[in-house]
């Protein structure tokens, strides 16, 4: 029990201390809302994403290099993580659907998780250079920026999900059932009642379309807002006290950010899974 609590405590303390030193020089450096271009189409968050991809590749290679029927070490850990997530999503989506879509949901979860935690590493978002734009506004450009603190990254995941979402929904239940799920009257109506219900459900269908269209946008801004807000909070807290004590106010919030990193990865994955389940449920009924 002591060892379990010691590790996150030590991690949070070291992170906050290192961040305090990293942010200590040059006054208040607020992380800008947008990712800064470094070269070509690549931004400071792209570099961070590449590092995350590299880390994921290293982990995957280490875990699956020598696969054995009796697992040990990294393989054991990787299998536990993958199997737990698979079973968790399986309970939500059902055996058939999870087999088909796990590759996406698993990737989304691990990618967000790794990016969120990498964004907490000291110097990320705090080391960079000051800039002055054409209007004379002073700014700050960090060398590295958390992957999910860039709206382009969260939008990339959300919109990819949105496309796959429609693809899976249509292939699972068919285009007719998919449209019926949105627009057709629910329940058994006959005669004049049916005629009265049709315009109502058409209107409800339009609302549903708007709701569906908003969901990827909400996913994008939820993840971006939480991660960016977390980084801003840590930085703001470090500026509340003298520089030599800057690590102290941020310390408790590092615990929170460790939790937020995990929770946000889970929330994004879960919401995507629930959206898919909701839209595919009608398909199951149609099959029956």
């Amino acid at each position: 029990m002591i060892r379990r609590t010691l590790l996150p405590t030590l991690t949070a303390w070291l992170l906050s201390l290192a961040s305090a030193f990293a942010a200590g020089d040059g006054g208040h450096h607020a992380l800008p809302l947008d990712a800064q271009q470094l070269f070509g189409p690549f931004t400071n968050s792209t570099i961070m994403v590449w590092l995350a991809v590299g880390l994921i590749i290293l982990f995957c290679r280490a875990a699956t290099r020598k696969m054995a029927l009796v697992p040990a070490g990294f393989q054991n850990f990787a299998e536990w993580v993958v199997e737990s997530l698979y079973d968790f999503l399986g309970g939500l989506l059902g055996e058939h659907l999870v087999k088909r879509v796990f590759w996406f949901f698993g990737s989304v979860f691990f990618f967000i998780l790794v990016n969120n935690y990498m964004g907490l590493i000291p110097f990320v978002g705090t080391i960079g250079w000051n800039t002055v734009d054409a209007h004379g506004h002073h700014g700050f450009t960090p060398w590295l920026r958390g992957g999910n603190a860039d709206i382009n990254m969260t939008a990339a995941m959300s919109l990819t999900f949105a496309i796959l979402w429609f693809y899976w929904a249509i292939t699972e239940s068919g285009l007719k059932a998919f449209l019926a799920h949105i627009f057709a009257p629910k329940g058994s109506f006959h005669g004049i009642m049916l005629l009265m219900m049709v315009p109502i459900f058409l209107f409800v269908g339009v609302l549903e379309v708007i709701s569906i269209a908003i969901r990827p946008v909400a996913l994008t801004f939820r993840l971006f807002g939480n991660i960016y807000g977390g980084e801003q909070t840590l930085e703001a807290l470090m500026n509340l006290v003298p520089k030599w004590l800057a690590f102290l106010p941020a310390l408790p919030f590092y615990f929170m950010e460790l939790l937020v990193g995990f929770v946000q990865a889970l929330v994004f994955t879960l919401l995507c899974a629930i959206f898919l389940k909701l839209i595919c449920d009608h398909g199951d009924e149609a099959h029956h």
Partner: protein
Amino acid sequence: MITLLAATTAEAVTANPGIAETIQKTFGFHGPFFAAQVINFFLVVFVLKKFAFGPIQVMLEQRRIRIAEGEEKLKRIEKQLAESEETTAAAIAKANEDAIRLINEAKEGAHAFSEQKAQEAIAQAQQILAKAEAAAKADRERLSSELKREFGRLVASTTAQVTGKVLTADDQKRINEDALVKVEA
């Protein structure tokens, strides 16, 4: 988040461009950056699918099949064991029945054999007894005839000496017969 959106809206109202354009500028949403991140994301999906989820799920499936096979084998072995125990019990019961039957047969055989031997012994004993009786009878008859003959001779001799007469064969025979009749009476 709310603050950010409020700030964005305020900026949008001030500058009066479209809201979408304002949001795009404020949050730094750019086509090339977005495309680069999409590519990065697909790279991650590819890597994880190929090097993590694929092999791990194959391994988990292999292990699941192995466990299912093991369970199946275990059930088969348990069934075979039960059948084997049943067969062994049946064989032991049959062996017991055979043994009891053989013992009974042996007992019956022994009984018949001993009966036969006893009968043979009785028969032999009766034969011996009959022979002995016959021999004894023959001996007695022989002795009786010898005794009669000796008695006759003694009677004849005594009669001759007493009477001083030489007895003829007919006399001797008659005297013998009289004497024997008296003795036997």
